[in-house]
């Protein structure tokens, strides 16, 4: 890089700033400012009538307390579901990414294409398809019922597991791809070396492959956990009133009930938790493996 830096392109000192300026201004206005608006709303108190609600800024931190005491179940569920989904995604995606990276040979690109293909169907329609698959009179319920894994009258739809299953399905791609990228980068000679030093397969995996794939594991976990924790579609389509998550509350309060302060407080709390995780990640590993 040093050689590149010393070449002709270094002439203009302001050129890079001119290049990044349009995007930064855009993101400042339509990404950063909205968060200030959100913060202000979260500290406002609502008044006025039901038909003409008014918001007055008042440093009302009570909204945060209010949000946590009114929706403790949804908060616990969001993080519980998202965490479970992330772990299951990791367990399902690792073998697939491993096979694509090391065993697929000339079919590597074909399998990668196949992995991405289902995601060309709109997210909502994919989730709807799961509604059909898990339906009470569907083949999965009857199959599980006949081998005794599900009690008669047992259902899959409208349970926590249906919601978690939907979360897993919709974001597993974001686990598979970073895992594949980090596994693919591993120099096969390192594996040869570990073989030559009489390491067993398990030991090679534990001491060579797993540590080297950690950037992928962490990036994938982050990319699954974040959207899963904020989602409300899976809980809406596949769950019941007993499986609502933070996203459902935020959506409901903003678009239906129009109680903005509590919803804004909840949004910012969710964002703060996730931001802390992301910053810890980028501090440790940089941004390069994240996309």
């Amino acid at each position: 890089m040093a050689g590149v830096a010393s070449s002709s392109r270094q002439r203009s000192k302001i050129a890079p700033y001119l290049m990044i300026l349009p995007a930064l201004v855009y993101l400042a206005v339509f990404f950063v400012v909205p968060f200030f608006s959100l913060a202000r709303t979260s500290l406002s108190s609502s008044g006025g009538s039901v038909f003409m609600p008014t918001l007055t800024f008042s440093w009302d931190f009570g909204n945060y307390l209010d949000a946590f005491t009114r929706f403790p179940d949804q908060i616990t569920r969001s993080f519980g579901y998202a965490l479970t989904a992330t772990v299951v995604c990791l367990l399902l995606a690792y073998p697939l990414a491993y096979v694509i990276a090391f065993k697929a040979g000339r079919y590597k690109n074909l399998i990668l294409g196949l992995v991405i293909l289902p995601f060309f169907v709109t997210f909502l329609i994919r989730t709807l398809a799961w509604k059909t698959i898990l339906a009470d009179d569907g083949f999965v319920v009857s199959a599980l019922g006949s081998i005794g894994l599900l009690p008669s009258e047992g259902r899959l739809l409208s349970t926590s597991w249906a919601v978690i299953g939907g979360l897993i399905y919709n974001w597993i791609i974001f686990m598979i791809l970073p895992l594949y990228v980090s596994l693919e980068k591993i120099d096969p000679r390192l594996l040869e070396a570990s073989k030559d030093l009489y390491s067993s397969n398990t030991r090679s995996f534990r001491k060579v492959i797993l540590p080297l794939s950690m950037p992928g594991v962490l990036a994938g976990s982050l990319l699954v956990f974040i959207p899963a924790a904020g989602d409300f579609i899976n809980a809406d389509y596949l769950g019941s009133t007993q499986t609502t998550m933070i996203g459902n509350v935020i959506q409901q309060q903003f678009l239906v009930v129009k109680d903005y302060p509590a919803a804004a407080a909840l949004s910012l709390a969710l964002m703060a938790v996730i931001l802390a995780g992301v910053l810890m990640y980028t501090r440790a590993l940089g941004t390069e493996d994240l996309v």
Partner: protein
Amino acid sequence: MTIQDHIAEANAHVAEIQPKKPLLGGLRLGDTALRIVAGLVLLYLFLPIFVIILFSFNDPAGKFNYTWQGFTLDNWADPFKYPALTNALKLSINVAAVSTAIAVVLGTLVAIALVRQRFRGSKAVDTFLILPLTAPEVVMGAAMLVLFLDLGWATGYATILIAHVAFEISFIAMTVRARMRGFDWTLEDASMDLGASPTRTFFKVTLPLIVPGIVAAAMLSFALSLDDFIITYFVSGSTVTYPLYVNAAVKAAVPPQINVLATAILVISLILLAVGTLYRRKRIDA
């Protein structure tokens, strides 16, 4: 025989004596199990897709296309039966195209600056760009809605466009940046050494190098925009995009045409993917 020839010959011998069996070939049983698990996961990814395609041929009894009633080709014969659905799809394609066009310009400039230039604060720009990717969509949508309410802007086509550009910029900047890393930039110097002007160098050397990355990023951005539901849901007002139509249908009536169009989009994507791969292969061979 030169020394290089000797080395080449020696290398050829080494290649011959290397074991032909795969690297981790010791545990055959474990290997097979691994392949089976991977196959099952792949099958799992396709299960809902099979259901969607199958139900595009369903002849639903009521308003909802959830249970199998009987085979029919009627849905495929009349894919644009519901004008509201067709219009929603058209609007989504419009939003995806326009927002991607804007975001490609803004995002690519940032990517070029980050890879090609060294400047103070580039690390901070890097971290800042990652934030829109990591903000949960529901929070981003809510924040934008609050801004538009504060500004007194009516939500609709324009606000959807603004929101889509906002989340696409980072995706494009990151994708283009990733594709640009590892290029041989000394080609630019070579071009200038041979007397080409900076402008000519940009159009003849730099641009051809980065165009494949930009195309890939634009396709990703287009797909993300077309698929976006959550953010759009917050900032759309009464405007109905394709995913919003589907969501409304879930509450009222799900016509099988939804499955027909989803299948059609899938097939078109598949063809584009195949053409792209073949085209790339041809270029590498040539």
